[in-house]
């Protein structure tokens, strides 16, 4: 970097020519990304609405939206649903399954790795609406799962009605596991074989090696991956919306679905924004942890 300032530097630091290079990006990010984030804070204190009296005049309502939020039983339900969805599909599902696949694939034949890897990756590469469709038909009343069960003489189950949360959790696992698998494959390749071999010589069992050596060795990868996967899962909308629409009732209404319903079905933009602020704050906290985990 020093070399550049000595020879003919075309962009002089003093006259801020370099700023012109950054300006277009900064301008577009300020307008369409950072400004909406600030608006989230602002609107959540207003009665912003699409129709009715409130649509004509924007008024500050103080903490009314928040007071309403804490009394709204559906908010509690959707926070609870979001937590179940996050823990089920991101923390446990994608992480554990991704790790398991990566671990079991180690030292297996190349062809086998490739076949299993491709199948898992296909779910990840596929756009979320197509994933929703595939899993919707899989769990449908006359879907593949029920067809398989009936083959074994088990009567059909209305999966999307009786266990809707489970179906969207499995759908998100299907869609997202490949990412964790790739991350853990790279991390496991970095674990030196000598350490594990030395442990075998010392008489350690497979489980001991896994929990005492391998997992502690890739601890940081696990933390970072956990943050990333949780952040991705927090924003999931299309997959749930297309599969169950948040229903039946409110049984799969996560925070993004609830935010959408309030803002665009009930036209309560102010209230919808207060809910999205909740999402945003969770996202901000997780992102900060994520950056910290990267720096270490």
């Amino acid at each position, binding site marked *: *970097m020093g*070399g*550049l300032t000595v020879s*003919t530097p*075309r*962009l002089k*630091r003093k006259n801020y020519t*370099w700023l012109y*290079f*950054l300006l277009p*990006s*900064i301008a*577009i990010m300020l307008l*369409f*990304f950072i400004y*909406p*984030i600030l*608006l*989230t804070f602002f*609107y959540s204190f207003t009665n*912003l609405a699409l129709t009715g009296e409130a649509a004509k005049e924007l008024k500050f309502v103080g903490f009314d939206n928040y007071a309403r939020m804490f009394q709204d039983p559906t908010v509690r339900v959707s926070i609870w649903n979001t937590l179940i969805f996050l823990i089920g599909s991101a923390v446990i599902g994608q992480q554990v*399954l991704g790790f*398991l696949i990566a671990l*079991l694939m180690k030292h297996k034949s190349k062809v086998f790795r490739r076949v*299993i890897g491709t*199948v*898992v990756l296909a779910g990840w*590469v*596929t*756009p979320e*609406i*197509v994933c929703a*469709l*595939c*899993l919707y*038909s*899989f769990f*449908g009343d*006359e879907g*593949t799962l029920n*067809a398989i069960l009936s083959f074994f003489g088990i009567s059909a189950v209305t999966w999307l009605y009786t266990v809707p949360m489970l179906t969207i959790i499995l759908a998100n696992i299907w869609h997202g596991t490949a990412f964790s698998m790739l991350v853990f494959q790279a991390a496991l390749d970095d674990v030196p074989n000598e350490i594990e071999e030395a442990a075998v010589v010392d008489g350690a069992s*497979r489980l001991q090696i896994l929990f005492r050596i391998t997992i502690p060795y890739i601890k940081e990868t696990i933390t970072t991956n956990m943050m*990333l996967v949780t*952040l991705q899962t*927090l924003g999931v*909308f*299309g997959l749930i919306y297309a599969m169950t629409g948040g229903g039946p009732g409110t049984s799969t209404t996560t925070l993004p679905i609830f*935010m959408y319903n309030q*803002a*665009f079905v009930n036209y309560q*933009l102010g209230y919808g*924004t207060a809910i*999205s*602020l909740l*999402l*945003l704050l969770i*996202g901000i906290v997780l*992102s900060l942890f*994520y*950056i910290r985990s990267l720096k270490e």
Partner: protein
Amino acid sequence: MNTKQRKLIYRILPYVILSVIGICFLLPLLWVLVASVDPNAMQSLKMPKHVTAGNYIDVLSSHENQRAFVIGLLMSLGQAVIVVILALLAAYPLSRYQLKYKKPFMLTILFMTSLPITAVMVPVYQLFLTLKLYDNNVGVVLFYVASSMPYGIWMLKNFMDSVPGDLEEAAWVDGASVFAGIRKIIAPLMVPGICTVAIFTFSGSWGNFFVPYILLQTPEKFPASLKLYQFFGQYGMVDYGKLAAFSIMYAMPSIVLYILSQRFMSKGFSMQGGTKG
């Protein structure tokens, strides 16, 4: 159970578990593949009595669908090109100069890459109404650009750091301008990085459903993702074959680009030969 048997089980068990996982991942996917060529496709996976390309032809010959695909392609391509150009420009001073606030700036960028876009969509909708950008495809592209800018800047800055500065200086001595230096020296050496960013931003917006769903209203302006959702709602219960064929065609660009990106990634990081050759 003796040691020999136990060893055998330890050898076979991983293959069994992985195969079961593989089948679970394969079944939903297999349905969409088979249904798309089955003239009498049902909700469940079954062997088609005969194979047809009719579903694909029906989907492709519809003007509405063609339009949705073209709109989707234009939007995603436009976004990818703008992101690459702007991010390349922004990455230049960030990579080549020691700026005072570079570190906090880059950390903010990294922070922004991980924020959930879903959380800002309600205010973005309001902003689009104010700016008269609502129901405007160009507006949606601009929002896509803004939301993938942090990722683009972060990646291209890191890629640019690995391009040696002396090549550029040599070009300056020969009378090239800064822009010519970026265009003729740096960009060609960063092709893998540029392709990675372009492919990921393209796939991101191609597969996105929520953003156009909120910001577009007129069905004639819908990109492929929205069209598929509409299709799903309207004919989903009756015509699984066409629905599956549409899904496959819609998923194709994402899959092809992913395979391409793997090519770039594996070759991409061994590019140090530039100064020596």
